[in-house]
């Protein structure tokens, strides 16, 4: 079984993976906001994050605070990996997006093939992962 390995120390923040993903899934358009991989900037470092499966469940420590008209949900970094919160949603239709290990020329996902810095690599892992 193959998995995408992410080495955040090599990531330069060029966001080629987002472009490759959106082009591969939209076929004639670019839109990083519709990509299934997103480069998250925390502090001054970059972390590419891949969207997993979507479920209708959030963690049980989550609290929504409403002040005036604004909702503060305290969801920050872990939202990228959260199966419920909508980071990886189509901005227009709100349909959740999920990484499908695509590739215009098989094998290999488009993001891994386009990554110029070597931050994304494809690794073989035992199937029990």
């Amino acid at each position: 079984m193959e998995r995408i390995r992410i080495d955040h120390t090599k990531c330069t923040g060029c966001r080629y993976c987002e472009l490759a993903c959106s082009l591969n899934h939209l076929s004639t358009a670019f839109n990083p906001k519709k990509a299934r991989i997103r480069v998250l900037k925390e502090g001054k470092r970059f972390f590419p994050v891949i969207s997993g499966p979507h479920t209708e469940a959030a963690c049980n420590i989550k609290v929504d605070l409403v002040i005036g008209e604004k909702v503060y949900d305290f969801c920050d970094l872990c939202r990228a990996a959260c199966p419920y919160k909508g980071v990886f949603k189509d901005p227009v239709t709100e349909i959740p997006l999920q990484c499908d290990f695509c590739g215009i020329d098989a094998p290999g996902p488009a993001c891994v093939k386009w990554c110029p810095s070597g931050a994304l690599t494809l690794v073989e892992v035992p199937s029990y992962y």
Partner: protein
Amino acid sequence: MFGWQGKLLRIDLETKKISIEDLKTEDLLDFLGGRGLGVKFFVNEVNADIDPFAPENKIVIAVGPLTGTGASSASLCSIVTKSPLTNTIISAQVKLYFGAELKAAGYDVVIIEGKALSPTLISIKDDDVSLLPADFLFDRPTDEALSLFQISFNDPWVARETRFLHIGPAGQKYLPLANLITDGLPVANSVGIGAVFGSKNLIGIAVRGTKDILLYDGEVFFKTVFKDLENLSENLKSFSDLSTYLVFEDFIEHNILACCYFIQPFASEVTLSQIKEIWKRHRGCFSCPIACLKTTQRGDFLPEIDAFMSLGPLCGIYDVKSISKIYALCIKLGLDPVETGLTISCAMAMKEKGLFDDESVPFFGDKKTILELIPKIAKKESPLANGAFKLCQELNNPDLFLGVKGRSIVFDVRNHHYLGLVYATSNCGATHLNGFVFTKENYDEIPQKVKLMQDKIAVLESLGICPYILKGISLENLLTIFQATTGITLTKEEFLKKGEEIYQIEHNFNEKAGIKRDADMLPVKFSFPEFEKILESYYKLRGW
């Protein structure tokens, strides 16, 4: 429409009127976008003899047809206005993510006019454009302003994806040395534009876009870019490794670098390995395979060669860590590192000669006093605040100023005549960003090569591609990508002709603004015997 979004956003800060217009297809075909389209709109709408600080002066922000697509290094967004430092037209190139985000928001051109009554922030979220009060960002250092701005969102994820282009305290004080900052990186060639933003009471522009950028032929595009990435040339790899310091050793060998305001030659007081020692991480702009920006472990940007020379050796400082400290301070205050460094260096040279008696100005090599002087400049409390050109004029020593059209020179061109002609004929004062090539050529070829490079850079910046790509990818490679993006086939000659036209329009604007031929002169100290001759044949080539 493929490649372009076809929309123009007009924002009047005075009446708070926001309107969206359609762009004409002929304009897009003639001027492509970016610098070309920006220059076209600016020249059409603004009188050449206007005062840069007048409310009638406009700021035109434009992205190219390739900006935001995955074409190699296609991240540029041009900002065109009239500069208070040089009184010429100037086009700055915003790198990192701002251009791509603006394109995704659905606009090719944004025109900002009028003057706001109080500090204002323009917020663009796709079709939702609003003017927000920005008093909370007033007089804040740029890093603080960025984090304050980000915590004003109630969704941290949206805050991360919103790109912010802003000015620092120097811009808010109308200093001609002020520049623009985006994401902690000073915007290239933006010296003076910060003051124009400040004069309009515009603190910053925030953009977030979620729209698609349509492509004519996705498959050809995918394959061409993929091929480019796979066959990244050796030249580009070494550029990625050394960034702009690629020319460092060549320059030392040919005596092009100098120390202490060009009084002494640079004798390798700092070595390349010392400079490289503090580079911990590489940063790339949007869709850039080169990643030439270098940062510290914490992610703060480190100076490129021009900023390094002007803040370091030209001020008599050879300690790499102190130079990056001074550079970081300049970014915090929104001062252009190159012009600020050269202004301090010029003042030091005058103090050394006994022509200038100011206690706050240090002697060469005094880094502690420089760190105290820079905040004073940003607060407009120092006579240096108006730049080296004005300082020399105020002290009745205009000959001591080493620059062209009011902007200072970084490299010693007595030994690099190619660069001398670039400096003299650049449309926005002495800058190598308007046509760099660091090779030695024979005299018959210099004017032709300078013109070709200026045209090439004009057209690349119009397409939205960073000119550094010329190190490894030629203009021909871009023809396929341009065709796959827009569906329009152009030849290399047509591309260059557009570049020539853009350069000509900029030149005509400067002429109307009163910048005549005699401004295309190198300072006496830097003039070389053949200069008149190559300038004359350059004019003949341009038909001026």
